């Protein structure tokens, strides 16, 4: 059960990297980032964590991994984050919401749309959060080295 989720999320993330024309030597890393993010998400949701919280946790992990990959392979971070977050993106929810809208079930539609919006906000929050941590670490190091040079 878990293994099939791992394999499918790897293929899905790498497949999206191909759709987005990512460089060939980054495909495996993209797949791995997506797989680990999805792993965190599924494990948290199976254990009863709310989907939004699980998404934040997964996207923080994705952002940290992507930053590592970007540092190591000297490529823009967007390559890894984009294909990594694809499994988390609430495409199914957005589709469900739209379907309910056109079937005139507005109550359900608004509920689903709000949830889709919250989850996409959670993805962005996770990505920005790790960037902030990175900046804080870098700036505090900079201050230390400045103190030393003084």
């Amino acid at each position, binding site marked *: 059960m878990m293994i099939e989720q791992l*394999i*499918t999320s790897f293929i899905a993330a790498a497949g999206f990297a191909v759709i987005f*024309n990512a460089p060939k030597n980054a495909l495996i890393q993209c797949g791995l980032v997506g797989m680990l993010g999805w792993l965190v998400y599924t494990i948290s949701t199976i254990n009863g964590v709310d989907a939004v919280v699980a998404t934040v946790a997964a996207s923080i992990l994705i952002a940290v991994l992507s930053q590592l990959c970007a540092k190591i392979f000297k490529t823009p971070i*967007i390559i890894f984050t984009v294909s990594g977050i694809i499994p988390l*993106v609430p495409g199914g929810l*957005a589709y469900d919401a739209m379907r309910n809208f056109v079937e005139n079930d507005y109550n359900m539609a608004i509920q689903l749309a709000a949830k889709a919006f919250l989850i996409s906000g959670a*993805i962005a929050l996770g990505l*920005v959060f790790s960037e902030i941590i990175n900046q804080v670490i870098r700036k505090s190091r900079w201050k230390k080295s400045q103190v030393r040079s003084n």
Partner: protein
Amino acid sequence: MDKKAITKVCLLAGKLMLQSGAETYRVEDTMIRIASAYGVLDAQSHVTPTGIMFSMGETEPTNFVRIDKRSTDLYKVTLVNSISRNISSRSLSIEEASNQLKMIEKQIHAYPNYIQILAAALASGCFTIMFQGQWIDFIPALLVGGLGFSAMIYFHHIVEVRFFAEFLASSIIGLFAYFFVYMRIGVELDKIIIGAVMPLVPGLLITNAVRDLMAGHLVSGLSKGAEAFLTAFAIGAGVAVVFLII
């Protein structure tokens, strides 16, 4: 140094990145970095999804580039990024940089269409499994997803109206998913459709929009959000039309 040449290089680099789907702040950052590497320290750039404004200092003329077509081509973003790194480390002259950027501009996508369609098909099948679908629905989702994605590529070529291609592609997805379930090759219509629709869903746009808003790029964030909303609406409507007819 020749300010016209510097402006040209900056604008070309920015245009390439924006057309290939780089983040707004990265485009602005790259342009200003290139300018400062060539000795222009007071360059200003303002980037929105549909245009780039760039000027050096107060007395120089401001330049503007209109962006019509946007796609996602991360390979180009990587190439432009490495050129801007080389410029920053002062190992690339203006002529060389401009030549290399023009080479990138002429380049076509890194992967041919059939590989992209194959990847989309595989991803669709996998998404069906990831959303707790059954393995029996893997093959239908794979076929329908590949078909929908190739339909979108085809309609993007022949239809100028942006959201119509997504609309038509998702109605094709809905139609064929219904067909497979009707023929009893697939079981759950919803799971097949969700998996097959995933390659069309503007997931990147939604997330980039929220991210731009948080980073203070309000114009870019709102316009990307509008684009994402319209695309999602087109997809939902395309599938819904099939449900209404059948």
